[in-house]
């Protein structure tokens, strides 16, 4: 072989590059066309019909991913969002109930224990009733408790648990307990304690509520002090209404409806028209005889209350 021939061999192929690329593109287009035709004639049945989770143990995954826990957590977070979106858009008849939402969020938060949004997203969407959420407040609380164990001092998780007790489980007393715990965390906003106190009023636990409002009344914030003073007066009004109702219970029978303070005065049932702690006379329902804080009173509207404890 001559030196020139060797040189040509070393210099590379003489086949035109553009022609080869076009030929390759034609071959690929041919293969793709065949694929489309084959899928039409022989429809594939391999689409995933059931939600699938390959690895269910968060601890095992934590080991498998070596030092890439945070990135793996992101993948599971994206899957959780996609799963939620997919189930939310699926027809209600599908029978699916966000079955993978908790396992996916559990894995994401085990891989990345500081994944704040995953705990809070889970808190909302696991607790909300189906079809808006999984309808599993127990799981939501479990996830948020895990968040508290990993991130001590995060008042938001305590607040979210309180909200679940209030909104999903209708347990105002437990909600108040969690709002108090939230308020006790470092950097907690100062509106949490009033929220706990209001919740206790709703739960009809007036003694605890009075104690909390009393504490709030010592605040250095003027708006908090005035809010607490009003709440304490409302609690006093509630006690007065209970006492008055007890006193009038049997005596209302002495006159017939329509009831009014004036008629009770004339009948000698009462000596003066009772007034609330703001000195505004109470309202008396003319049909039922129920005593209420008058709408003209600065204490109106009164907090909602649940069944007495």
């Amino acid at each position, binding site marked *: 072989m001559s030196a020139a021939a060797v040189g040509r061999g070393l210099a590379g192929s003489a086949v035109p590059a553009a022609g080869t690329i076009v030929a390759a593109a034609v071959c690929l287009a041919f293969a793709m066309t065949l694929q489309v035709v084959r899928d039409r004639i022989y429809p594939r049945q391999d689409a995933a019909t059931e939600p699938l989770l390959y690895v269910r143990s968060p601890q095992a995954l934590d*080991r498998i991913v070596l*030092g*890439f826990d945070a990135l793996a957590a*992101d993948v599971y*977070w*994206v899957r959780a969002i*996609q799963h939620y979106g997919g189930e939310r858009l699926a027809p209600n008849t599908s029978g699916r109930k966000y079955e993978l939402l908790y396992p996916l969020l559990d894995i994401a938060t085990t891989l990345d224990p*500081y994944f*704040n*949004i995953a705990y809070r997203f889970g808190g909302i969407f696991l607790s909300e009733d189906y079809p808006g959420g999984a309808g599993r407040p127990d799981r939501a609380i479990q996830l948020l408790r895990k968040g508290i164990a990993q991130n001590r001092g995060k008042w938001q998780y305590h607040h979210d648990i309180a909200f679940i007790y209030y909104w999903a489980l209708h347990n105002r007393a437990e909600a108040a307990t969690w709002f108090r715990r939230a308020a006790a965390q470092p950097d907690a906003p100062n509106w949490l304690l009033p929220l706990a106190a209001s919740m206790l009023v709703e739960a009809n636990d007036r003694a605890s509520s009075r104690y909390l409002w009393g504490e709030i009344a010592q605040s250095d914030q003027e708006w908090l002090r005035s809010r607490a003073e009003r709440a304490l007066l409302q609690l006093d009004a509630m006690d007065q209404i209970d006492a008055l109702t007890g006193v009038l219970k049997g005596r209302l029978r002495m006159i017939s409806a329509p009831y009014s303070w004036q008629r009770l005065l004339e009948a000698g049932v009462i000596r003066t028209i009772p007034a609330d702690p703001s000195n505004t006379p109470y309202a008396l329902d003319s049909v039922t005889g129920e005593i209420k804080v008058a709408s003209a009173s600065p204490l109106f509207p009164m907090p909602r209350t649940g069944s007495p404890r």
Partner: protein
Amino acid sequence: MHAVRHIAVNVFRESVRDRVPYNLVIFAILLISASYLLGQLTAGQDVKIIKDLGLAATSVFGLFISIFIGIGLVSKEVERRSIYSLLAKPISRPQLIAGKYTGLVLTLVVNVASMTVALYIVLAVISWNASPEMRASWEAPALDPQLLKAVLLIFIELMLITAMALFFSTFSSPILSAALTFGLYIVGHFNADLKNFELVVDSKPAVWLARGLYHILPDLSAFDVKMQVVHGLTVPAGYLLSAVGYGAGYIAALLLVATVIFSRRDFK
């Protein structure tokens, strides 16, 4: 020193000839496409995920460079028989090892630095486009300088892996060196479990063995602070210094043993 520098520069040039910098292009494409896609998929967590992805990719790309170039640093010279011409020159064997190692570390410096700059550029663009409310909801600012702490420890880890690959390359074939280095990389990430072996085993000798292995094997999980910096948690300077010091000590030990093994090798 001149010989070491000369070898190092040649190793760096060789890595450029081997198209190692192509991985920077792949890295940039990965980050840019991810930053676009994540905005649609992740419910406001794009900055966290871009940081996670950028740091993980820096680590993975660096790992491949460290292992696949590191294993060939010495063994390739032996296979190609170019070791004879090298050793015929006024270069000592320790200088050769030092030069080869420094050259690959130089390649890693360029790679890690370029990837860090690319990551900061992508984060700057995201931050620029974000509303003030969205920026306020981030656990840490997009252009958080704390990220550099994670990058520093990733770089030290890569230097350690390079030293491991070079160490194996002085006495075994490239395939075996790659398997051993990768195996040690995995073991290094589980190493912390050996420290608490007494919790799962009753036998005293087994516990002592595990404790010994804990100290002998590289503790690579110590270099992982990616999660902490992404969440804006403080990584104490003392921890950073101790991790860097541990890495430096381990690298020095590996290179010294590699030098001894390589110096005793007979190429006749």
